[in-house]
């Protein structure tokens, strides 16, 4: 716990610093998202699961996306310079995605937990909360039973981004 706390705390402060020092507004916005994620992790460590989730959903999700949309549509990011430079980072990025792929493969090859909706009721909810925690009760169905809707929500966001750019950008 202590190690995790310090890890996220240092990460939060350094991403906050990066937020204010970046010249490119898009990069600033992305570092701000990183800050929000770290804060959410700290909330979760404190046991305030609900606030942690809301932090990610509302701030890092909805509001920051709006920020980025406005920045991009106002063409503030013209003096853009790539933030991923050098081969080392490319290797790190590739390695991370491989690790994630391996973890996903491991998670989905085994037996999956029973869905929440079909054996519901207060008793079942209480038992599951005790078993998985308040986050698990939300997260496990989200990434198992509702995996497909979740994936296609991502497609929805992609389509919305394409549409917004087509309608709003001066030259496409």
């Amino acid at each position, binding site marked *: 716990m202590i190690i995790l706390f310090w890890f996220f705390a240092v990460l939060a402060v350094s991403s906050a610093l990066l937020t204010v020092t970046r010249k490119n507004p898009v990069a600033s916005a992305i570092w701000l998202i990183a800050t929000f994620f770290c804060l959410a992790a700290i909330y979760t460590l404190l046991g305030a699961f609900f606030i942690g989730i809301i932090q990610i959903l509302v701030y890092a999700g909805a509001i920051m996306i709006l920020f980025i949309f406005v920045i991009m549509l106002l063409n503030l990011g013209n003096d853009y310079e790539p933030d991923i430079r050098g081969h080392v980072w490319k290797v790190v990025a590739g390695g991370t995605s491989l690790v994630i792929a391996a973890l996903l493969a491991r998670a*989905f090859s085994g037996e*999956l937990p029973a*869905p929440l*909706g*079909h*054996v*519901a*009721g*207060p008793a*079942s*909810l209480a038992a599951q909360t005790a078993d998985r925690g308040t986050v698990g009760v939300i997260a496990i169905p989200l990434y*198992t*039973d*509702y*995996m*497909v*809707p979740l994936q*296609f*929500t991502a*497609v*929805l966001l*992609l*389509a*919305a981004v*394409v*549409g*917004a*750019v*087509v*309608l709003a950008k001066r*030259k*496409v």
Partner: protein
Amino acid sequence: MSFFAALGRPEVLDLARQTHYFWALLPEIVLTLGAMLVLIVDVIHKGDRSEPSRGSIPVLTLAVLAATALANTALFGLRDVSANGMVAVDGFRTFTNFVYLVAAALCIAISMGYLERRGIMKGEFHALVLFATLGMMLMGGSRDLIMTFIGLEVMSVPIYVLVGFDRMDPRSSEASLKYFLLGAFSSGFFLYGIALVFGAVGSTNLTYIAETLGTGTDHGHERLLMAGMALTLVGLGFKVAAIPFHMWTPDAYDGAPTPVTALMSTGVKAAAFAAFVRIFAVAFADAGAQWVPVVWWLAAVTMVGANLVALTQGSVKRMLAYSSIAHAGYLLVALLSGGDTGKAAFLFYILAYTVMTAGAFGIVIANSRDGEERVTLEDYAGLGLEKPWLGAAFSIFLLSLAGFPLTAGFLGKLYILRAAVEGGQAQLAVILVLASLVSYFYYLRVIVVMYMRPARSEGWHAGAGLPLAARTAVLAACVVVVAMFFAGAVPMRWAEQSALSLWRQPAPVAASPAPASLFR
């Protein structure tokens, strides 16, 4: 289908295992990847320059649609034994998927040439059409209300953008804004309806809802369920453009670029209707006492009202918009007829309707010029004599829409009438016949004007025509419309099998699920 089996497709899917979704969603996955591919290829072509996209983009888009259709054949004969899958694995989904793909392919084909003329030849157009098609497939093939809603949004958001794709045209932008605001509103209705249904039944899974209502036990939430059904009905009624939820339709159809109008009146409508069938005629089947009278009136008012208003329209595009509202009424009759014959008639009609409507809009495109939409009735005067092929094709599509013998529309209406009479909806059948008689007037008027009246001026129709690919597509649509009359038994048999699979119980439900509401 041994091809897919050789690739490792299981014979029976169990969607409780996540990996089986790769097979259940194969067409959707192919389509998603294809849409992204179109976006990327377009960007690679253009680089930093802002210029019209290359002619290979629509070809690539059609190839993606063909690949999706191929992937769709992998669903033939598959079934799912899980209790709570997100997507339905049945013949109904396979059939309707093909309908959306045909609608999208015709939309892309008739947009060739048109986009260049209006100066909106951009790869994003094609990618958005593909995304909208993906949404249709998700919406029409879902087995869970959450999935239906996400499909609805994946379909609608690209369509909002496509309606306003010509940013320089104020009518296009206005139509887009109008459609977007009303559409967002109706999505809200739909979502709230889903929440109330979940509250009443305890699940968003359509199979589970059907079983809970089918047991006939008092689940104690009658009013909540009724409110949920009412709100869901509003959301779906908006998307299928049934009166009184049709207010947006004429303006949005009129202002949108014509290929988008074709897609909206075919694919979008088909997807919304497929979801309508799944939610109301299957999941809420045993609560029919509550919703059937309401939908009965919707159907009657839609058929009568739309046909009467269509009589007064001077613009062919607006006339086709009202005609599409009227056809929503006919399809509602098929939905109300119930049973397998009703579903089969619905599937047959939606296929016929898609082909003939998209074809008719293809002719509207052929008659337009650079930046000028020639859509008034007078603009069509003399077309039949100066451009005999265009005139003949348009006549066939219009006759089919009217339901004239020797066309698919006639056979489709016949099937719907038969199903309606068998299903005990004889009054609706009578209304349908009378409404169709009214519709003959405005369809035939266009044909009369095309052949009997002289053109506005010498050489008025000189520039009318379509590029080769679009011409081929329209010709193919023409052939299909006629062939579906003479060989109607073949698609009808397929439709009947698909309708049957819709009713087959997917699985015995796992050990007595608790009567479930989280908040009880």
